């Protein structure tokens, strides 16, 4: 069935892109891996929220767009480069996440999944359309001093801003895992994720853990937004496709698995950027939705074997 659909789409493939060009493939691989760092960071945030609260953050992509607009405001009004401003964006999104958790999500943690989904859809609608109201519908891109710099590695080139974004995203992901595995609060968060009831029994303030986890999840995506704000042109509806990408990554990696989200981010990014080599740009999005359908149907146990509930 998938095959026949793929065949039906064949005429849509660009006529020139169908011949395999190794340099293009290499270029796709490199930019895929580099962009994957950001996907990983974004997905780590989503998987942390899900792992701890079993709530799917449908507003994840919209939070990321807010990270991008904050980076844009910082760059245009205060002259802060997004590669320095990402920390402020992360901090702002941490607060936003904390507020959303305390004000809304906290009340429906034990509600049926449908209710949680509807609530998060409501949050996503508000975030996206407030952005639309404030910033308007035109695509925006932040200019960075690094935007035009490139390095040549033989026949392929490397965008310096992608390289920096990758390095920062990976560093943040590593810092987060150090926090989760090496600090008291981090261990408490993992304990609450493993067994909420058990954590309650031994006296954990689970509400606080939830709030912090949601805040950190939002901060991840805030930083990720700032890091790509000079690479990816964005507008308020971009949030949806970013959410879909996050879902792709997190389901591939296994819902709730941090390592899975990290590796999954790299995989999905490489797959998308190789897809972009062969497909018309307008079909790249199609590719990512078809990928989502296939992933949903053949939902693996996750890269690291933790079966989604």
């Amino acid at each position, binding site marked *: 069935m998938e095959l026949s659909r793929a065949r039906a789409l064949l005429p849509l493939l660009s006529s020139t892109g169908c011949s395999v060009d190794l340099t293009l493939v290499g270029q796709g691989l490199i930019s895929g891996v580099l962009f994957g760092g950001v996907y990983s960071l974004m997905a780590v945030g989503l998987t942390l929220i899900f792992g701890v609260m079993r709530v799917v953050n449908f507003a994840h992509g919209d939070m990321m767009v807010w990270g991008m607009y904050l980076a844009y405001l910082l760059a245009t009004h205060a002259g802060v480069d997004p590669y320095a401003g990402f920390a402020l964006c992360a901090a702002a999104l941490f607060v936003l996440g904390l507020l959303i958790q305390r004000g809304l999500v906290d009340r429906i943690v034990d509600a049926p999944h449908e209710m949680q*989904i509807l609530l998060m859809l409501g949050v996503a609608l508000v975030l996206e359309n407030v952005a639309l109201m404030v910033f308007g519908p035109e695509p925006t891109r932040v200019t960075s001093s690094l935007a035009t710099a490139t390095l040549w590695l033989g026949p392929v080139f490397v965008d310096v801003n992608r390289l920096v974004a990758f390095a920062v995203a990976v560093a943040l992901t590593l810092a987060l895992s150090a926090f989760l595995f090496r600090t008291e609060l981090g261990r408490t968060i993992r304990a609450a994720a493993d067994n909420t009831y058990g954590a309650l029994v031994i006296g954990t303030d689970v509400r606080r853990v939830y709030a912090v986890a949601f805040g950190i999840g939002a901060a991840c995506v805030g930083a990720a937004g700032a890091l790509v704000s000079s690479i990816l042109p964005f507008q308020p509806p971009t949030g949806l496709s970013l959410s879909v990408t996050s879902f792709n990554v997190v389901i591939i990696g296994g819902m709730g698995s941090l390592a899975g989200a990290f590796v999954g981010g790299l995989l999905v990014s490489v797959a998308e950027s190789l897809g972009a080599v062969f497909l018309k740009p307008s079909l790249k999005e*199609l590719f990512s*939705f078809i990928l989502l*359908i296939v992933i949903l149907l053949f939902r693996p146990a996750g890269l690291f074997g933790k079966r989604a509930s």
Partner: protein
Amino acid sequence: MRWALLAALAVLLALPTVLSSYAVTIFILIFFYGFLGQAWNVVGGYAGQLSVGHAAFVGVGGYTAAMLSIELGLTPWLGMLAGAALSAVLGAVIGYLGFRFGLRGFYFVLLTVAFAEVCRIAVSNIDALGGALGLYITFTGNPRQLQFRDGRAYYYLALALLLLATAIAWAIERRRFGVYLAAIREDEGAAEALGVNAFAYKMRAMVVSSFLTGLGGTFYAFYLFSLQPNTLFGIPLSVEIVIRPIIGGAGTLLGPILGSFILTPLAELSRLYLGQGGLYGAHLIAYGVLLIGVVLFLPEGAYPRLRRVLTRRDQSGLAAHTSTDATSTDADRSSGRAEPARADIRPLSIRAGLTGPPTPATTPPLLETRGLSRRFGGVQAVADLDLVLARGEMLGLIGPNGAGKTTAFNLLSGFLAPDAGEIRLDGRSIVGMPPHTISRLGLARTFQIVRPFPRMTVLENVRVGALARHPRAADALERARGVVERVGLGARERVPASGLTLPERKRLELARALATEPALLLLDEVMAGLNPTEIETLIQLIRAIHASGVSILLIEHNMRAVMALSQRIVVLSFGEKIAEGTPAHIAHHPKVIEAYLGDEYVDTAPA
């Protein structure tokens, strides 16, 4: 209520004669979005399968009718049906994939969103369908082309669509179809155990819903004269479709209509006044806020709350009216639900051929397993189990915690597949059959942790079971009432299951299973949590059920009950059968005492 609805309908029919053309437009949108919400309600509300991709069906329906009209000159009145049929095919594909692959909640939402987006992007890239710019329909004003110079024609057309969808939803709600959908929404596993083929019913709901939504696509396209992929397939339209029934009350007949009457004028006014000022997303922000508010403060939606307020007022005026139940359906009322329950205890008719006097040696036993095994990771939960239960027998299954008793039940009732082994019910292999088929063959079960349908009343719960043998809702209700009486819940029949005490829930669990008129009843720890008096009455009840011809296999930790009830007992320990025999034999079996009963029990066991 009925008169009020008829009066409202008469007003709506007369209204266009006095309304301004702008007001007519608003009403057209109210009806149309109410119609889409009602169509969504069939699968999203009644069946509880949250689809956020219903725009796909609008798009497929609209594009099909438009292409047939533009390319082949086919009148949209027929193209409408073709479009709806194609939408139903898409609905069946999405439903099949979603339900077969077990995608629930979040995963099902994603699947529906992804399909709608795939359609949108594909259509935007197909030049023959107009690409991203879309299709335009030339205005002719010819009614054969579904075009009218007078806006009031669209008013009546939209109203007709709304009434059509509502009539279909009403018919579903009254029938077994609707009761089963509600049971699936509440607890799919428990519904399966009562003989409900959840997959088939969800598929039917999806097909009906997508067909109706597809009809709406044609109306939309020919009302706007243009089709753009982003408008017809986009997520904003899916949100428009979902939000009205959610706010009005999903899974209720009038919820989607009420939701549309609340939301549509609101959205139009904010679009008119705020959109012009460059404030693009204002009405979507309002939607988001409303969604959040409804989830937090009114999770059932506006209509159920309104109905409760109205019912309360009714009752204060009618002192004789005793019903306090707000969740009863019209079907219940029309079949005499409000009458006081009669105390007739009728014997349950048992499926012929599956019951009778205890088995002579030559015919197959009612239930037989050979080498039944199931492993979970490193734990062999059930190992090589041979079990025989003769017709008319009451067999006890005991063993320490973790012995594999409940796993054995799950294997027998089809909730788990065995790794190896054979299960025969009345000589027929049932390995690999789904739970609902096994239930229909005459094997009913209860769950150790009771799983009532919380928002249904006691009677409605039991009716789900009775529908397995009595497809007409009214007949099933009569049967259910008899069973409810029989288990002693007659006085509580109109109480929602969520309001029952634990002993009552245990009885309800038993009543529901009994209502499927089983030949063999599997009881999983029905005594747990009951006090000695309650246990005594339940023992009497189970004896009476057994005496009426139902064979029984029971898991029980309460030794007094097991010893009093069982004709024979099988003992499991670490998944293996370690002993089998009469209660007296088991009570003195050294292996059993060692594994399970403990030393002090030897003295008190019956000789």
